[in-house]
């Protein structure tokens, strides 16, 4: 089997169950069992990256809005808004993601198999125990909590003068938020938020090592790397492959967030420096 055949057979192996209802090409069902080639390892681990990107992108996209809401709630003077948001952030930032995955899985498994009857409509629950939904929900809440902390810090450090100037121009309420508060918050939070995005992508590798089982051996990059390391008893090939994939992904994230950062800072003469990963601030 040439390398190109391997790529064709396995490039979408990690999502092969979804091939009949999405535009995903069918792939080989059985994983290679012996005589592993480098090409197989690179292809299958790359195939697993689909899940890492899926979890990371969707959790970030949904999490952004919840995080802004949470940060606003925590910044508000109304205790009815502030307290629940504080507790939410404490719960998800104060406990390990690994435990959150286990807990969520065990809780979701306890939902009735047959589904709920609501107003005569049966709501299915089985899909919630699958990683693509259950783990995504956990990651969504988790990243929202971390990002809310970053956004709250940014809200607190919006220059007083900016807000006073907005009021002097007659801006109030929603207009003031949309045109002054929100853009300034985003601009101040962006370097920290970039860092959070990088670590969220890293956190997606935990999904298939916690409670959520890899259904029909459809797992993420680390799942396949671990499969190869277990079979070949040689960690020196598969793990560096995952590492390289993640370095590439991290560079992409930095590039993408850097472009947004330049746009957010475009009105400032020299503040639009490059967004750098700040490894001394890790989540």
């Amino acid at each position, binding site marked *: 089997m040439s390398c190109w055949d391997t790529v064709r057979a396995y490039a979408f192996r990690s999502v092969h169950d979804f091939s009949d209802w999405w535009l995903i090409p069918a792939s080989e069902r059985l994983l290679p069992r012996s005589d592993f080639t480098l090409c197989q390892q690179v292809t299958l681990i790359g195939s697993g990256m689909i899940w890492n990107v899926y979890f990371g992108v969707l959790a970030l996209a949904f999490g952004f809005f919840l995080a802004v809401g949470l940060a606003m709630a925590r910044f508000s003077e109304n205790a009815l808004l502030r307290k629940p948001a504080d507790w939410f952030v404490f719960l998800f930032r104060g406990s390990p993601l690994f435990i*959150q995955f286990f807990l969520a899985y065990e809780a979701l498994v306890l939902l009735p198999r047959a589904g709920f009857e609501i107003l005569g409509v049966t709501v299915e629950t089985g899909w919630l125990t699958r990683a693509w939904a259950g783990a995504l929900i956990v990651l969504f809440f988790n990243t929202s909590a971390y990002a809310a902390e970053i956004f709250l810090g940014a809200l607190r450090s919006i220059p007083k003068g900016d807000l006073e100037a907005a009021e002097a121009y007659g801006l109030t309420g929603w207009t003031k938020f949309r045109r002054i508060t929100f853009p300034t918050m985003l601009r101040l939070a962006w370097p920290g938020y970039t860092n959070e995005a990088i670590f969220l992508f890293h956190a997606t590798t935990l999904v298939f090592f916690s409670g959520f089982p890899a259904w029909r051996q459809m797992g993420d990059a680390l799942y396949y790397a671990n499969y190869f390391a277990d079979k070949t008893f040689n960690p020196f090939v598969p793990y560096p492959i995952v590492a390289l994939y993640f370095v590439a992904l991290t560079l992409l994230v930095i590039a993408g967030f850097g472009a947004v950062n330049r746009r957010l800072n475009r009105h400032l003469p020299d503040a639009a420096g490059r967004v750098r990963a700040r490894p001394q601030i890790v989540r």
Partner: protein
Amino acid sequence: MFPFCEDPSALEGARWMACYLTTGKHMAFYASFGTVLVLLAVTAPLALLFGLGGALATRSAVAPLRWLGQGYTAIVRGVPDVVFFLFFVIALDQGFEWLRHQALCPDWPMPVRQGNDFVVCAAAKLPSNSAPQWMHEAYGFATAVLTFAIVFGAFAANVLSGAMRAVPRAQVETAEAYGMTRRQATRRVLLPQMWTYALPGLSNLWMILVKATPLLFLLGVEDVVYWARELGAMKTSTFDYPHPDWRLWYFLALLAFYLLLTKVSEVVLGRVQRRFSRGQATAAGERLRRAVPAGAPA
């Protein structure tokens, strides 16, 4: 544990619960919380040491040493820590066995890697096959500690090299003007001043280390997660204490444990930060200085 626990099937209610929660396996579960704390206590200083070494290496005048330090600090930027955990725990084990193999069996005819097997001579096995169970467990724990220390050492090296850069350059230049060598300036001026800049980053790192401890489970150590899964799983009537699937409750207990641990850490680290800011020429130090005289005699 209690005298009335002899016949579990006859127990009910609170007595059943009291006996259930004090079985031998539950005692092992409680002890595993100690394992987590021991891991934290051993790993934190070790990682700090690795980090200090890495940070000093990145500033070294010797180029290969500098590259080594830069490579070490760079590895954690782009790659998930779980990958390192899974990698090092096998790589370290094989590395140790390979070194012992080279030393103990120099005339072994076959290659160490044969297809999908890693074969070393019997004398090089770690721990040896005849070793008691606790030796195997201790060895597993030691590799886990070393793995944690290597990974978190790289994080710490990043924090510390950032802190070293944050020390005002004039301080080191002044030291050199007084005729101190590079090494003396580092030891007497740079290192003592670095800590106040490093503390916020190190506090953050401690929180991450705390939240990384359940990953011990992935490294094959019988930790809190292992026991929570083991004890919580459904027990049929062939067991002394049958019960349905209680894993949710066990994981809730773990959640509470970790929330408590992070909360306590937060409070303690806040105090330490305050203590370190006292008398420093930083904004936080200035605030403390101004806060004191209110009401205090001048």
